[in-house]
């Protein structure tokens, strides 16, 4: 690993305001240290924020406020999360391994980088995310695990986080502290589509630090996270869905549908939600919503299987959330 200048800070004021170029915050380190050892990340300055007191999880206006340094384990095992946001708990427990969940912070999880092998291996010459203008190795090469939604000619890298899928389904808002003050950005808008600039992944300004994730009161207390993968544990999603339904008298009053393993960002599907809202909670409705969610998919040869797979994942998750049998 290349050497770097190391700063250790004790509070938010000490952390913010570092020049963005060549600077990285160190929290759990599970992405950053790995990518530094792979020579993908080459920061000149690393600011260690592990001692900054930002790990509190508190009740907030009927919802919850999660400090950005709360670990995935801490959030998954918190009573408020189990009670109000079951799909987030399930997504966290289906993520990574116990060791990684103990280390990884929620703020870091939101900043997690793609697992696309063309990004992670510097021996591959083409990756627009790692080396803008060099081309997309995955599009012409192996792309079984890469995205089918939100892709561009420049990049098809999948977004790897499970937790972020549940977080966008629950309308999470990030609090960002910068040298010029604090601002709030919905997670849905924080993750940027690749377009022609896949190297720009987040709406994060120079010197800004994620300090908290706030979840508003959920539309319903039932929620499901369904994840399909090559192994039963310790594997990234091929396809996943976080769904929350409010059903009254057999009619869907409100719906949240978000997808993982298939998008270049945690993929919220307003199309599926529109197809569900006001409709009876039946298998037919769920199938219509699933088709709507995938209507804009642009699969390639190796990942075309993700279209029917994801439709089935959505239908099954909705059936579980609504308590409907096939």
């Amino acid at each position: 690993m290349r050497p770097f200048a190391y700063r250790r800070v004790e509070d938010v004021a000490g952390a913010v305001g570092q020049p963005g170029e060549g600077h990285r915050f160190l929290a759990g380190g599970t992405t950053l240290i790995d990518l530094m050892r792979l020579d993908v990340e080459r920061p000149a300055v690393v600011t260690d924020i592990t001692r900054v007191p930002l790990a509190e999880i508190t009740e907030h206006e009927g919802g919850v406020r999660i400090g950005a340094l709360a670990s995935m384990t801490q959030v998954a095992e918190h009573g408020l999360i189990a009670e109000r946001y079951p799909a987030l708990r399930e997504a966290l427990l289906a993520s990574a391994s116990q060791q990684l969940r103990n280390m990884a912070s929620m703020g870091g999880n939101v900043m997690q980088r793609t697992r696309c092998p063309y990004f992670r291996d510097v021996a591959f010459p083409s990756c627009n995310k790692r080396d803008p203008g060099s081309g997309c190795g995955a599009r012409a090469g192996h792309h079984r695990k890469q995205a089918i939604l939100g892709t561009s000619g420049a990049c098809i890298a999948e977004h790897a986080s499970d937790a972020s899928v549940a977080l966008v389904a629950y309308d999470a808002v990030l609090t960002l502290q910068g040298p010029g003050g604090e601002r709030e950005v919905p997670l849905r808008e924080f993750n940027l589509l690749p377009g022609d600039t896949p190297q720009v992944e987040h709406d994060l300004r120079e010197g800004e630090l994620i300090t908290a994730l706030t979840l508003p009161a959920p539309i319903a207390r039932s929620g499901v996270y369904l994840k399909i993968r090559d192994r039963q544990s310790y594997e990234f999603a091929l396809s996943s869905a976080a769904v929350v339904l409010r059903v009254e008298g057999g009619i869907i009053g409100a719906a949240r549908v978000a997808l993982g393993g298939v998008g270049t960002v945690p993929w919220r599907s307003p199309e599926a939600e529109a197809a569900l809202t006001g409709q009876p909670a039946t298998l037919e409705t769920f199938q219509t919503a699933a088709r709507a969610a995938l209507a804009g998919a642009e699969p390639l040869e190796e990942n075309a299987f993700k279209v029917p797979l994801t439709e089935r994942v959505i239908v099954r998750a909705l059936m579980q959330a609504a308590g409907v049998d096939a």
Partner: protein
Amino acid sequence: MTHSVWEAPETGELPLSLTVNGVQRHLTLPVQASLLDTLRERLHLTGTKKGCDHGQCGACTVLVDGQTHLSCLTLALSCEGREVRTVESLAGEGGALHPMQAAFIEHDAFQCGYCTPGQLMSAVACVETGHAGSEGEIREFMSGNLCRCAAYPQIVAAVRSVAGGQGEQP
């Protein structure tokens, strides 16, 4: 705001104080040193193994403040003031084996043994943190520890036996 910042003047070596297996240690380390390399190369605690060095195999699992961590992905300097436990802490006075070590032998829970130190630390944490209630729960808690000899059924049996075997069947 500089009062709260502890900053390396240059990219050289920096001091670190931490507790390893109950002993206070004071070291001077290169900034990029991992906890794993520090344990093995500087403290000569070679029980903790380096497998992939990328957080994928679990051979380097240690306990940091009581929770399983991957020491290969842990920057040593981030452990200032923390308590680290390695496999060397398990055996008692005179080399008496920890119940989990004895159970691994009893249940034939390894072949080559390379992953065993990491398996033991996860297994001890699995029981200590109350995640050994069922075979399924043990398998999920332990899934970050790969065993290329595929001793998984025996590892699960060893953990169950230490947990009291009171868990439900899968």
